[in-house]
């Protein structure tokens, strides 16, 4: 068993591209679900329209990179309004139904043969990240401590990513300390009570949906840029459910929980996955386990771990046990 490789990949996973992307998506979900109680099961679509908005603008229409970013942001806001206007006046479950369906529609449109001249079908789009890497201030080489280091391109993506995470966390911190955040949390508890106190609940829910979508869409940009490519199947429903898992793992309605949750989630996945594959190649596991099925086994083990967490620490890592106790009343 090569413990050194396992250690290095695990540490790299804790700050790597997936962690950054999922952390941003989860910060968005935390705003919507954790604070405002909105069940947006279509977070993947928000990242998808942003990533595709940028990629298509640059790769298909050969327009400037920054215009692509603007179009990606605009597409996210439009999606939020499209989903929110018909459903936010209804009971909470309707938003969940509509968003999960919309996310699949968005993904299927991206991969459809009909629109493959625009979106590139199941191959997606490439050749749009040139301008982004042209801005890279790092000269070629590796950056990091000893074996835990990245090349200049990855370093640039991660730098931008962690700066965006810091900004998003700062934003959430300021907002949730303010009267605006108080209205949001109150809506999560009971909409009618908030209405009876003269607050326009629909408007606040819409603001939360848009804000969560926009924060999440930053993750979409980074996902596309970090891989220098977008494919429709990156934005499937599992993506959204991983984001929810991360929020609940960290503890809903806490500023840093999506970030720590995302890092922990990927550390667990990578550590368990690599340990299993090392153990299989060293012949330490029964022949039932092969290189082909340990991918599934690692999800089983991580799933088991998450279940145990929810049983023994239902409030998540940062949650307050008293709040969970209130639900049982």
């Amino acid at each position, binding site marked *: 068993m090569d413990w050194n490789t396992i250690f290095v990949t695990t540490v790299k996973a804790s700050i790597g591209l997936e962690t950054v992307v999922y952390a941003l998506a989860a910060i968005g979900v935390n705003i919507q679900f954790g604070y405002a109680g909105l069940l947006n099961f279509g977070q993947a679509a928000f990242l998808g329209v942003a990533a595709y908005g940028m990629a298509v603008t640059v790769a298909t229409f050969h327009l400037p990179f920054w215009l692509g970013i603007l179009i990606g942001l605009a597409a996210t806001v439009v999606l939020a309004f499209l989903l929110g206007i018909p459903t936010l006046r209804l009971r909470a479950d309707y938003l969940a139904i509509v968003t999960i369906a919309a996310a699949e529609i968005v993904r299927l449109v991206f991969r459809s043969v009909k629109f493959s001249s625009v979106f590139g079908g199941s191959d997606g789009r490439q050749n749009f990240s040139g301008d982004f890497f042209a801005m890279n201030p790092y000269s070629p080489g590796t950056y990091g401590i000893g074996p835990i280091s990245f090349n200049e391109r990855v370093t640039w993506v991660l730098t931008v990513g962690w700066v965006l995470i810091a900004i998003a966390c700062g*934003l959430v911190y300021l*907002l949730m300390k303010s*009267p605006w955040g*108080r*209205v949001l949390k109150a809506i999560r508890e*009971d909409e009618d*009570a908030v209405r009876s*106190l003269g607050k*326009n609940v629909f408007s606040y829910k819409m603001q939360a949906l848009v804000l969560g979508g926009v924060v999440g869409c930053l993750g979409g940009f980074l996902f596309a840029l970090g891989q220098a490519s977008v494919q429709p199947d990156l934005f499937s429903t599992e993506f959204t459910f991983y984001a929810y898992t991360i929020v609940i793992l960290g503890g809903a309605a806490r500023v840093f929980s999506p970030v720590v949750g995302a890092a922990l989630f990927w550390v667990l996945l990578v550590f368990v996955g690599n340990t299993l594959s090392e153990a299989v190649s060293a012949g330490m596991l029964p022949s039932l386990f092969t290189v082909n099925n340990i991918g599934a086994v690692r999800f089983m083990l991580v799933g088991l771990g998450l279940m145990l967490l929810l049983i023994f620490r239902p409030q998540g890592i940062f949650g307050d046990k008293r709040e969970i106790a*209130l639900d049982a009343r």
Partner: protein
Amino acid sequence: MHADSTTTKKAAALAAFAGLDREPGVAKPDPILVVDKVVRRFGGLTAVDVDHVEVQRGSITALIGPNGAGKTTFFNQLTGFDSADEGSWTFNGKQLKGVPAHRVARSGMVRTFQLTKALSKLTVMENMRLGAQNQRGENFFRALIPGSWRRQEDEITERAEELLERFKLDAKRDDFAGSLSGGQRKLLEMARALMVGPELVMLDEPMAGVNPALTQSLLGHVKDLREEGMTVLFVEHDMDMVRDISDWVIVMAQGAVIAEGPPDTIMSDPRVIDAYLGAHHDAPMSAEEFEEQLQEAEAELESEIEEKA
């Protein structure tokens, strides 16, 4: 001094009602709320069909009626939580039909709920602060600049503290609202409604689920609202409470207002007795009718005995 003002406000309210007709929809001298021909149907069921009703400013008016009379539905319509199929109503002369609930509250008509809606995972203080109106920090962009709302927040906190003290919840200030008892939640809900600065307070069953020890203090708080110049309209089943605090009673049955009157005499109104107990339960009988019924009953008994034998 307190007792003094109590008597004057109460006397003023009672004077306004003196000599009023007992008919449903009777005109009041200074109505704050005027309702006309409000109808609400759920499929084939007409839940509310109120022809005309007025609520006197500065009074405590009770809305009573048997279960299913449509009191809560009527309440929901007036406060914008449910839409009316027909009709109109004005609050302080302002048309309110079709106005969404949050605008109704802003215009000064604030309600509480039958099933208390304490915001469990917010502290008692946060619950109170939420009630304040025109908060600068509730705007998304200004929320990002704490300096723009801090001072207002301090003023709100001060006002909330005064109210909490009055409602004896100041010790619970930093507890989650979800940890309060049922009665304390009712108190919190009422105090929170006062943070809005209402002119008309609509209480939907303020005594439901409140432990008897708290009843008296809750009653006192409702009376205090009138002392401060507010108008109170409340739905209640507890007739002792209705008699104790209300100045005027409106009775609903099967969706319509069937009678109005002062609390001490309303329960002896035949229309009200009919509504609660059914029209023929003890209709006054002549001596012949009584004889007839007695004979019928005896005949029935005899036939039963014969059957058994």
